[in-house]
């Protein structure tokens, strides 16, 4: 038979009375006494200290640290509750990045909802739970203890047990046999239920909350998408800025230089103007290249396939493109896919010693899949020096709920596979 993993399942088990659960319940209830006393002392002490120091402001400032006491109580209580919930109660606190300073960590913990909940639990523990536990567990333990020693006491003195008066060892023994088992049985169930309820309360207040977790995840996801979106908007802004500003001026410059060439007679002056014209054109070409890396126009106007074809055309090796995409995707998805292909083709040209490359794209279910396969030497990874551009794209895809995988055995072929949900709204 499987070991019960909570007090409730244990209570309904036939083996409850001979299992460790009654004793665990006793231990849990009785151990709440020192913890409860400690908690209430700590809370009252801290409150008194705050009140005492409030005239010099520090006291008021210190009050904001109360949730930290709650968090500490939470740690202790989650450890103690393992008596009743052997699997343990996971911490509701968010993991703090290692980059945080000690001060920032404390501020973060102080503001967490879970810390305030734990403080509330601490108050309950200090005011109600431990006295309640003491009354029930203490009473039943005392009665049981006294009952066990009744035969010895009855042999020397008269013992009054409720309505009965016991004078002899035999009477004591009869009382022990008749009274102890039912008392043990009844109190075990009562204490088991009480300890179980207290443990559930601790779990509810000190454990993670499902909807809180879900909300956190949803919020995180949204904020990451917002970031990706902001990133795209910013790129579009930069591109627009370059297009309307410096590009126009350079084009204007080439026009002026072109006109000057026509008017100048053959000679050194004309030669220099022609040279300047060439340089202005080279600057324009460089700028166009840079803009393509920031916010490719074809992608915006004609979508992923046209943009991928354009990158493929620029590649020094033959690249065949086979894409069947039924519709356009939202900008961050198209941009991520485009930059994966662009970065991958760049890497293939630089490192793979490939003679040809193939880009494929399709929609599988609700996911966009893009693969880039080359016949090069293989051995490519997503981390390390060869794929620095791609590692950034992994992060970007991650924010969209997508993935990037590479299969590149030594000797090739290398196949990069990108997957991404077609829709960003959940």
């Amino acid at each position: 038979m499987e070991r019960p993993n909570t007090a409730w399942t244990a209570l309904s088990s036939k083996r409850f009375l001979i299992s460790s659960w009654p004793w665990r319940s006793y231990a849990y209830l009785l151990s709440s006494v020192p913890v409860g006393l400690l908690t209430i002392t700590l809370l009252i002490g801290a409150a008194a200290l705050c009140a005492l120091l409030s005239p010099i402001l520090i006291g008021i400032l210190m009050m904001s640290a109360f949730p930290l006491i709650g968090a500490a109580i939470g740690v202790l209580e989650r450890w103690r509750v393992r008596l009743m919930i052997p699997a343990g109660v996971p911490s509701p606190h968010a993991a703090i990045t290692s980059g945080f300073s000690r001060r920032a960590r404390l501020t973060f913990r102080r503001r967490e909802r879970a810390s305030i909940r734990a403080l509330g639990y601490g108050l309950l523990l200090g005011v109600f739970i431990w006295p309640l536990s003491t009354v029930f567990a203490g009473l039943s333990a005392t009665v049981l203890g006294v009952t066990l020693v009744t035969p010895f006491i009855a042999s020397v003195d008269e013992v009054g047990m409720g309505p009965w008066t016991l004078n002899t060892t035999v009477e004591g023994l009869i009382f022990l046999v008749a009274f102890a088992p039912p008392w043990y049985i009844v109190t075990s169930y009562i204490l088991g239920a009480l300890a179980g309820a207290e443990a559930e309360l601790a779990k509810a207040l000190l454990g993670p909350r499902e909807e809180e977790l879900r909300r956190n995840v949803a919020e995180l996801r949204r904020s990451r998408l917002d970031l990706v979106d902001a990133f795209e908007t910013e790129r579009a802004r930069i591109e627009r800025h370059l297009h309307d500003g410096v590009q126009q001026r350079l084009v204007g410059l080439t026009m002026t230089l072109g006109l000057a060439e026509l008017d100048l007679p053959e000679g050194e002056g004309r030669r220099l103007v022609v040279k300047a014209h060439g340089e202005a054109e080279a600057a324009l070409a460089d700028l166009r290249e840079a803009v393509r890396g920031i916010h490719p126009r074809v992608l915006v106007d004609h979508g992923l396939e046209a943009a991928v074809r354009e990158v493929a055309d620029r590649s020094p090796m033959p690249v065949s493109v086979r894409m069947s995409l039924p519709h356009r995707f939202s900008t961050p998805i198209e941009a991520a896919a485009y930059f994966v292909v662009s970065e991958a083709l760049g890497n293939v040209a630089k490192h793979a010693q490939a003679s040809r490359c193939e880009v494929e794209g399709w929609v599988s279910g609700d996911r966009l899949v893009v693969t880039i396969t080359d016949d090069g030497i293989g051995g490519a990874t997503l981390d390390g020096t060869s794929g620095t551009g791609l590692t950034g794209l992994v992060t970007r895809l991650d924010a969209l709920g997508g993935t990037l995988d590479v299969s590149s055995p030594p000797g090739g072929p290398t196949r990069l596979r990108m997957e991404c949900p077609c829709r960003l709204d959940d």
Partner: protein
Amino acid sequence: MPVPARRLSIVLAEDSLLLREGLASILDRAGHEVRDSVGDADTLLAVVRKEPPDVVITDVRMPPGHSDEGLRAAAAIRAELPEIGILVLSQYVADAYLSSLLETTTGGIGYLLKDRVGHVTEFLASLDRVAEGGTVVDPEVVRQLLARRRDDGPLAALTPRELEVLALMAEGRVNSSIAEQLVVSEAAVRKHVGNIFAKLQLDDGRDRRVSAVLTYLRS
């Protein structure tokens, strides 16, 4: 300044004042008449509908959307007034935009990078070609198209010189212009053109050869 084949009446659409003035001064000095210069696609359509010019020169990206308003205006003009030559200029050219230009038409159309305007003589020659019903495609676009077909069978059969001739044909140049560019005789160009059409199994219909080449490259 070269003398134009004929004085053209031109409508200019370009949202940057700097470039509008630069273009206007080049066209003006070449002896053409810049009838109107406008800064957005709607005004362009209104002006052209009111009194059709010989040629419309338009930017691709214009207000309000700063996307491809110029291309859409060009398509609208071509549909309504097919006799007007259209020269589309862009800060950036790509084959992807060519289809929207070529779909509706076979001639009287041009698509050039704005940088080409600075090569005034060539630019004015392109303008004349568009006005005469020819096709002008930016060398950059042709390069893209050729890159796409480089591993293809028939293209691989062309000699390097024939490839050069093919690229110039795709740009919309006539034989004399190709001969001048490659410093060979027109007879030599004619021979190359014949070979190319034979190898690619295309029809050499004299006035439709640009679209034949482009269609082949884009297929």
